[in-house]
C-alpha cells in the first residue's frame, strides 16, 4: 500500500513515517513542501493520503482530488459512516485521511489508528517539552529572585524562598510570577545583582 503523508512539520512527519513504515507492505512518502504537491501526488499514485488538520492547503488538496484528471483513481475524504468514532478520534488527534475509490475501509482502519496514536504521541511530546522548558525557566527566575532577596535582606535561602511562597499564596499567584515581578523590579531600580 502506498501512503502519502502531507505534513509541513518535519519532526512530526518523521514520527508518523517511522510508525507506518514498520509494516512491510506499506510504502510511505512524506510531502512537506506545498509547491509541486499536486504533481508529486499524481506521480506517487497513493492509496491513502494523510493530511494534518492544521494544514492550510487542505482546501486546495480537496479541490485537486475532486477535479484532477492526473490522478489514476478518484480520491475522497475517509467517510465510512460506521466509523464515526474513528473519524472523531482522528480530528481530535489532528489528522485527516483521504482514500482512493475502491479501497476497502477496513484497510485504512489500522493505518488511521496508527496515525492517530502517533499524532497524539507527538502532541504529548510537544506538551512535555513545553512544560519542561517552562519549568526550567521558572526555576531560573525563582533562583534569581531568591538571590536578590538574600542579598538585600541579608537572609538565608530557605527564608528567601518562604517569603516568595507566602507572597504567592497571599496573592493567589504562582511563585514564579512573584519571582518574575521581583527580578523585574530589581532591574528597574538599578544596580541589580
Amino acid at each position, binding site marked *: 500500500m502506498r501512503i502519502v503523508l502531507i505534513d509541513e512539520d518535519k519532526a512530526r512527519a518523521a514520527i508518523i513515517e517511522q510508525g507506518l513504515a514498520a509494516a512491510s507492505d506499506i510504502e510511505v512518502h512524506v510531502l512537506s513542501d506545498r509547491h509541486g504537491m499536486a504533481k508529486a501526488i499524481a506521480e506517487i499514485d497513493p492509496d491513502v493520503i494523510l493530511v494534518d488538520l492544521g*494544514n492550510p*492547503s487542505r482546501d486546495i488538496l480537496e479541490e485537486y482530488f475532486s477535479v484532477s484528471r492526473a490522478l489514476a483513481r478518484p480520491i475522497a475524504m475517509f467517510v465510512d459512516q460506521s466509523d464515526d468514532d474513528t473519524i472523531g478520534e482522528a480530528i481530535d488527534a489532528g489528522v485527516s485521511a483521504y482514500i482512493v475509490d475502491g479501497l476497502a475501509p477496513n484497510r485504512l482502519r489500522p493505518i488511521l489508528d496508527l496515525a492517530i496514536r502517533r499524532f497524539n504521541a507527538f502532541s504529548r511530546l510537544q506538551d512535555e517539552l513545553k512544560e519542561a522548558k517552562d519549568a526550567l525557566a521558572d526555576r531560573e527566575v525563582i533562583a534569581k529572585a531568591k538571590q536578590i532577596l538574600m542579598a538585600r535582606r541579608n537572609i538565608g535561602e530557605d527564608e528567601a524562598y518562604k517569603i516568595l511562597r507566602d507572597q504567592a499564596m497571599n496573592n493567589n499567584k504562582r511563585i514564579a510570577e512573584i519571582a518574575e515581578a521581583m527580578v523585574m523590579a530589581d532591574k528597574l531600580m538599578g544596580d541589580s545583582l
Partner: protein
Amino acid sequence: MSLKRITIGFLPLVDAALPIMAREHGFAEEEGIEIELIKDVSWASVLDRLLYGHSNAAHMLAPLAIAATLGRERPAQSLSVPFVLGLNGNAITLSNSLAEIVQPDGGLGDPYSVGNALKAEAQNRKADGNPIRLAAVHRYSSHNYKLRYWLAGCGVDPDRDVEIVTISPPFAADALAAGEVDGICVGEPWNSVAVKRGVGQIVLVTAQIWRRGVEKVLAMKSDYLSENEELVEKLIRAMNRAGAHFVKAENWDMNAEILARSEYLDGSKTLIKRAISDQILLKLGDEPQHIPDFMFQHREAANFPWKSQAAWLYSQMVRWDGNSYDAAEYAKVEAVFRSNIYRKALADIDAPMPGANSKVEGAFKAPVAVGVTQGRLTLSADPFFDDRVFDPEKLEEYLYDK
C-alpha cells in the same frame, strides 16, 4: 452562575468578528453563555470539526453549509443557519501586470469595463497556451460564485476562457508574486496583504457584483439546534449586540486591535481597521479609498437569514456544478436558512424584523421601507451589476434565462 458553553470554529478572517466580539465584549456572558473559539486554517477543517461534533457551531462559507447539507463531498449532514455573519467584504485583486491591462487608470473599476478588457486579454492568453488563472477560496464559496457571475456576465466563460482554481488565502500574495495565479478573489485582510506587498491591485470589490450578497454564516448541525434552541437564541442575541457594537465608528480601533491578536487573525491592526472602516488601499502608493458598504455586518437586518439568499447560492451551484436543478434539493436548501429561529431570538427586543423570509434579490434600485413584524426597516439598493433580479420562486426560469 455557571455559564453554558458553546464552542465555535472559525477561520482567521475579518468577518469572523461577531462571535469573537460577542465573547470579548461580554455580550455572550450577559446571556449566560461562555463562547470557546477554535481556530482552524482551512474550511475543510472547520467543517470536519463541526460535522463530527468537535465544535457546536462555526463561522462558515454560506454555500459550504448548503453543500454539506446536500451531501456534496461529504455524506450529507443537515446544517442550519440561524444567523448571517455578514455580507460583502471580499475583493478581486489582480497581479500588477494584469491590472495594468484591464484597469490601467487604477482605482476601483467598473465591472463591465474591467470584464470586457479581461475578456480580450483572456483570448490572447488562451491563444498563447497560457490561460489567465484566477483563484477563489473554495468551490463552495460566494467568492467563486460572484467571480463566475461577473465573468459570465461579461461574456467570459469561467471554465473555458480562463482557469479558476482554489487558493488558501494566506498563500494568495505569494501566488500572485510568483505568477502562479493572475488574480484572486478572497476576503479581507488578504487582498490588502497582497496590495501592501506590492504584488497586486484591487480592481473590484464583490459588493460591485452584488451589493447585498450573503458571505459568511453561523452554521450548526440541525440536530444541535433542535436540542439546544434556547442556547442558540441566547447566542443570536449576543451576536446581535456584537453586530451593533461592531459597526460603530468609535469601536473600530478597539475591535481592530482585538482581531489582530495572535489567537484570532494574528495580523496587522492597520489593515484590519481599514477593512472594518470601509477604507481600502487599492494599490501600493495610493491613498486608501472609502468604499461604502465594503463590509456589511449588521445594518439593515444584514444578519437575517433570508431564504432567497440561500436560493440564489443554490442557483449558482446548479449553474456551475453540472448537477441539474432538483426540487427536493431546493426545498432542503431553503430549509438551511432558519429565519424563524432568528425571529424568535430577537422577538422581545427592538430589532427590525422583516415581514417575509424571502425577497426578490437585486430588485431595489433605491432605498425601500419594507414590511416588518417589528421595528422599522429600510433596505438600501441591492443590485447585481447586470441589473438582473432573482426571484426565488422562479429559480428554474432564472437558470435558463440567458
